[in-house]
């Protein structure tokens, strides 16, 4: 190996790399903030007793879980403008694609969590006359979310990794910035290794936090419903 490593390129472009990382985190955060409530709405539709609510929700979940994230993004970015005349930027397309994608996956997590709450809790909530929205809000969801919290966090980390596809539609995330720097400096090896390490550290931090939460939950006995 005769390659002369030169990591000065990292230091020279530190500001740009951090800016890219910030954009990556921002995109992920937006997808979480939109995808989570949307996922809850879809889950509630699937759990409804009205068939005209159940089946569109089922189709939604199945379709958006089956199509690759990149295909969904390309469809929004390349096909949608032709169809509607509505032109989306890289950021908008990625934010919408990732929100929809995560809502489809998260709805299954919500559904699993809600289904795991025993019949007795529903009976008791109905028994004191609570309305459906109220019993969801104060009785069922707090327990379901607590139980599924580690799964939610795991999904969010997956989403952070998937968000790198935004670079393919020229959104200035960490990966895009890295490509940009490597075109200018030809220090591809250093740059790509550096962003791999950056991703690794951020994701490792997140998964450690997840493990901490899991630990906490396992220890706090008060919330274990029968």
């Amino acid at each position: 190996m005769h390659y002369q490593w030169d990591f000065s390129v990292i230091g020279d472009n530190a500001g740009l790399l951090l800016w890219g990382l910030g954009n990556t985190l921002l995109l992920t955060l937006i997808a979480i903030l939109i995808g989570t409530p949307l996922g809850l709405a879809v889950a509630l539709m699937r759990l409804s007793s009205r068939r005209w609510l159940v089946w569109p929700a089922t189709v939604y979940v199945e379709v958006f879980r089956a199509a690759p994230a990149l295909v969904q993004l390309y469809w929004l970015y390349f096909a949608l403008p032709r169809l509607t005349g509505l032109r989306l930027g890289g950021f908008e397309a990625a934010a919408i694609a990732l929100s929809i994608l995560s809502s489809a996956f998260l709805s299954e997590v919500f559904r699993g969590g809600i289904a795991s709450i025993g019949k007795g809790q529903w009976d008791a909530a109905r028994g004191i006359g609570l309305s459906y929205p109220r019993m969801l809000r104060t009785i069922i969801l707090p327990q379901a979310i607590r139980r599924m919290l580690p799964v939610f966090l795991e999904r969010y980390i997956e989403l952070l990794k998937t968000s790198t596809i935004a670079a393919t539609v020229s959104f200035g995330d960490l990966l895009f910035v890295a490509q940009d720097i490597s075109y200018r400096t030809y220090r591809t090896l250093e740059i790509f290794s550096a962003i791999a390490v950056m991703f690794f550290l951020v994701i490792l931090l997140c998964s450690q936090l997840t493990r901490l939460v899991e630990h906490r939950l396992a220890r706090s006995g008060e919330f274990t419903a029968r």
Partner: protein
Amino acid sequence: MTTDNVIEISGLRKSFGAHEVLKGIDLVIPKGKTVVLLGASGSGKSTLLRCVNFLETPTAGTVAFNGKPVGTPKGTGGERSYSDRELRALRAHIGIVFQQFNLFPHMTALENIMEGQRAVLGRSREEAAARAEALLARVGLAGRGGAYPSHLSGGQQQRVAICRALAMDPDVMLFDEATSALDPELVGEVLRTMKALREDGMTMLIVTHELGFAYHIADEVVFLSEGRIYEQAPPHEVMLHPKGERTRQFMLGHSEFRLPHLD
């Protein structure tokens, strides 16, 4: 229309799929009285009790609450439709206590008792909390309001569940095998609470396996068999001098119940 019957059930039927569990029940629960449902498991007692506050929807027949039939008739054949709003209002007036307590595990005892008061009766936080504290004191749990259900014994949990139902100021209380999930040494504290309720004049419908308790607390005992009322009379008649063969067999099968005594 005024009546002295809190609950009037007539022609009540309930099927689960092809299996008919209740085959036409007529029963009244007069104000201030305690009615106990007895019967072998599978006789339909719990289903009947759950039909009273519509946790199970009857297949046919009517339930009238304070003289007013619940739901609206749907064509012929005795079927009725029930609106969500109507059932919610009804359930707020009917307290129910479950075998498995079903306390909300993520709320303290006090919050459990406050939830219905706040959400359904629209009471203020202070009002609801004061009422909850008073009820807890009444069932011997003064000062335990801050405890989560998992930190309470089964008997304590069940007493909190009774308070949760009482906090709604119900006209009638339903007890669905309220002591069956308890360790034997904890049964007494719950039974005493129920007995005190009776002395306060509460109207109650009780499903229980505690025959000695049933004997003492009941104004009327209803023996169910295969989805029908098989025998109905004051406790000393049904339990000590049963007329029907099935009732006699049932009482013989519970040989631990010999002499009527309590405590």
